[in-house]
């Protein structure tokens, strides 16, 4: 079986401008939603209490809401979750209130209403933890970006490094844009997914750039111009790109379907990341590298001795 039967190099770079405009538009939209709607942070970041309770029969949300509000909490959220028997209750962080007792009061009130209720999960996070998490998250993002730039600059050349990182940061912003637009819950696991995607989709750019370097070194492609080399690199890796992403996506879809609510948004973030990852790292990164003006000389000079080993193999 062979899905991709490409006769000649597809002139991707001829359309580079279009790709970049599309990217710029999605990017701007994502930033717009991030600014206008903001992220719906989980209580891990904001502080507060989340409780999951289970009933033996479908729960009466309205009654639960009344009894929770009756305890004097403000801004509470009560919603069913997963099945009709499962209910999720959120209590925001309240300053000056001994928050650790909140969940007990609530469960006592619910037990009074219906003794069959069972507490499945409680999560309480103090406000001081949330700030730290946000800070650590940003530090982790910074470290990933800087680390990747340094590694790629060392392995390839700074233009590639910059191109790859811009392309993939644009992925990150787009994932965040989705989370802002749909107001999906942004939790720590989602943050982990975002960072994992960042590392993963840089792979794509690396695979393409590897081909670019190889083509620049190879005498057979000596007459090709830089955009042509980029076209050749993308064309010869497109089959691998799509098959790899398809396979990874199978796994992620499996998590989305079977993994339950805890892994739901983790898998959603990965799915968006993988889909945009294909597009951005292949088209956007290559295009940016082209605008930055990659040349044969950038890659050939520093790694001359390696040429010989490559030659020996062929």
């Amino acid at each position: 079986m062979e899905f991709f039967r490409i006769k000649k190099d597809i002139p991707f770079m001829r359309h580079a401008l279009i790709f970049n405009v599309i990217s710029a538009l999605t990017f701007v939209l994502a930033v717009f939603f991030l600014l206008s709607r903001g992220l719906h942070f989980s209580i891990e970041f904001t502080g507060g209490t989340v409780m999951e309770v289970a009933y033996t029969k479908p729960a009466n949300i309205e009654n639960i809401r009344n009894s929770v509000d009756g305890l004097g909490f403000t801004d509470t959220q009560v919603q069913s979750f997963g099945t009709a028997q499962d209910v999720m209750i959120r209590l925001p962080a309240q300053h000056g209130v001994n928050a650790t007792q909140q969940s007990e009061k609530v469960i006592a009130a619910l037990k009074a209403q219906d003794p069959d209720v069972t507490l499945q999960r409680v999560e309480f996070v103090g406000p001081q933890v949330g700030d730290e998490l946000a800070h650590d998250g940003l530090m982790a993002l910074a470290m990933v970006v800087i680390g990747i730039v340094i590694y790629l600059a060392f392995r390839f050349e700074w233009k590639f490094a910059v191109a790859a990182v811009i392309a993939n940061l644009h992925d990150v912003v787009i994932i965040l844009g989705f989370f802002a637009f749909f107001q999906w819950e942004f939790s720590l696991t989602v943050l982990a997914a975002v960072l994992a995607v960042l590392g993963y989709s840089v792979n794509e750019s690396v695979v393409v750039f590897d081909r670019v370097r190889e083509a620049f070194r190879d005498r057979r492609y000596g007459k090709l111009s830089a955009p042509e080399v980029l076209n050749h690199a993308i064309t010869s890796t497109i089959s691998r790109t799509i098959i790899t992403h398809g396979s990874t996506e199978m796994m992620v879809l499996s998590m989305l379907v079977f993994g339950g609510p805890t892994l739901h948004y983790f898998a959603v973030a990965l799915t968006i990341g993988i889909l945009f990852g294909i597009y951005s790292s292949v088209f956007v990164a290559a295009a940016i590298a082209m605008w930055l003006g990659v040349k044969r000389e950038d890659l050939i000079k520093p790694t001359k001795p390696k040429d010989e080993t490559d030659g020996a193999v062929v």
Partner: protein
Amino acid sequence: MNRYPLWKYSLIVIALLFGTLYTLPNFFGESPAVQISSAKSTIKVDSAVAERVQQILQQGSLAPESVAFDNGSAPSVRARFANTDTQFKAKTLLEKGLNTDPADPTYIVAFNLLPNTPQWLQSLHAFPMYLGLDLRGGVHFLMQVDIKAVLNKRLQGLQSSVRSVLRDKNIRHNGINRNGDQIEILFRDADTRDKARNVLAGEVSELLLQDAGSGDDLKLIATLRPEALKQTQEDGVKQNISTLSKRVNELGVAEPIIQRQGADRIVVQLPGVQDVSRAKDIIGRTATLEVRMVDDSVTRGTEESATIPFGSELFKIGKGAPVVLYKDPVLTGDYISNASASFDENHQPAVSIDLNGDGGRKMRDATREKVGKAMAIVLFEKGKGEVLTVATIRSELGSRFQITGMGSAEASSDLALLLRAGSLAAPMEIIEERTIGPQLGAENIRKGFDATLYGFAAMAIFMIVYYQLFGLFSALALSVNVLLLIAVLSTLQATLTLPGIAAIALALGMAIDSNVLINERIREELRNGNSPQAAISIGFDRAWATILDSNVTTLIAGLALLIFGSGAIRGFAVVHCLGILTSMFSAVFFSRGLANLWYGRKKKLTSLAIGQIWKPKTDVKADVKVK
């Protein structure tokens, strides 16, 4: 060219063997057990307790599968049973047999689940992974220790030490004040100040002294030395950890985790505990300490039979020696600003105690007339007192004194810890709490497992259909990857959480990248007209550079998560990073081994089972490429 030397095949076999052996323990499940640990800090569990447990069980004609003494950080005896029925009976029996007074238990008897790993695997140190709270249910607390309060108390203590040292040496000062983290001592003239500095440098070595002021308004500014500051903070947190451990023991939790996190936080995880309010109640309890005089109107040795005078109480020292103490305390734990293990002038282990505020004066008043008599220190918890030590007063005691004759360095550090437990517990606050029901935990395991299994199956089927034999190699490499990853995690005794399972799934999803790269490369080489043997060789070699680059970038992201992540994220990051490393081995080294084994010896190989290779025929440019 496609042959591995023997050592490479051997390496593969060794890796497979390692993977299988260390993954195996995860499949044996767990059997019900009863765990016996100490309920009191003065009582240590040892192998003698194991023998007693055996005896008690024999008398009750209950046959345990095994009784073993585990000398870990919290020594315990574990008896394993065939079913939960015997487990229940054994627990009641042991509780009665071991604890003479049910109101004041000496040992904690708790239910536990012990892994059923066979002995021969255990002797290879092959144990199953721990399951995180989200998978087995339980309570998680993150406690913040109020370090400022600890420092404040320490400085208060030092301030009174300074005062009493200066008074003892007859050095006149113009007042001692606290100013934030500084202690200011005022002097009229430089001579006195110099004298004071010399004396203080010798006697209160924790302080850093600096001159300030001018004219007749001279000052000596004392601050805590950085190392003393650090020591105080460390002690404060350690103190609270040991206090917490003792209290958690009381909850009868089999495998609690009490760990320090960062500079001033403590994680408490109680697997299986559902009663959160009781847990909070016990964890939040405070202990108090009192120094009391021994009532010598009761003759030693007759305490148990004699009538206790009004105003006195009967206590027990540690395991049992009785002692009668006056009810009126000389002073309470509030006055103790520090207690540490040290050595006396004869280089024998001792415990040094610092008192603050009025403590020194009270102590002096109480001991002046009592030289030669005995004094006791009592720790009160839950309203019950336990005598930690009884010591003879050798001389009038001030704000700093030593308890000598401890016998061993271990005894002195134990006592210091207990003294601090009753006096120095820094205020703690719960800043994070998570409770997961056992059902939810079991559900999480099943969901995580299902997601990984179905995802894996889908990928494997796709790979085999698309790349045929090479797809099979890839699928096998992928299963070796899981095997190695789980084996490594089990050897590291990592805690598996739901994000950890997600990371295993994701590691597999990403590891397939290497195999796809290799297979596509081989196809491409074949398309370019290379012979099958050459195609395998070039395919693997060329793909390697790319695989390395892409894995390094993924690893950078993983490391960032590992460094900056906490809690659930850390679990994810550990598995993510390890998964990348094992995938490099399995996808490149192992799958090449399979290809070599299958094709390497066939000299006249004309085709590879790697799926259909489509060759562009009419294209001119493609022709150029081939040549």
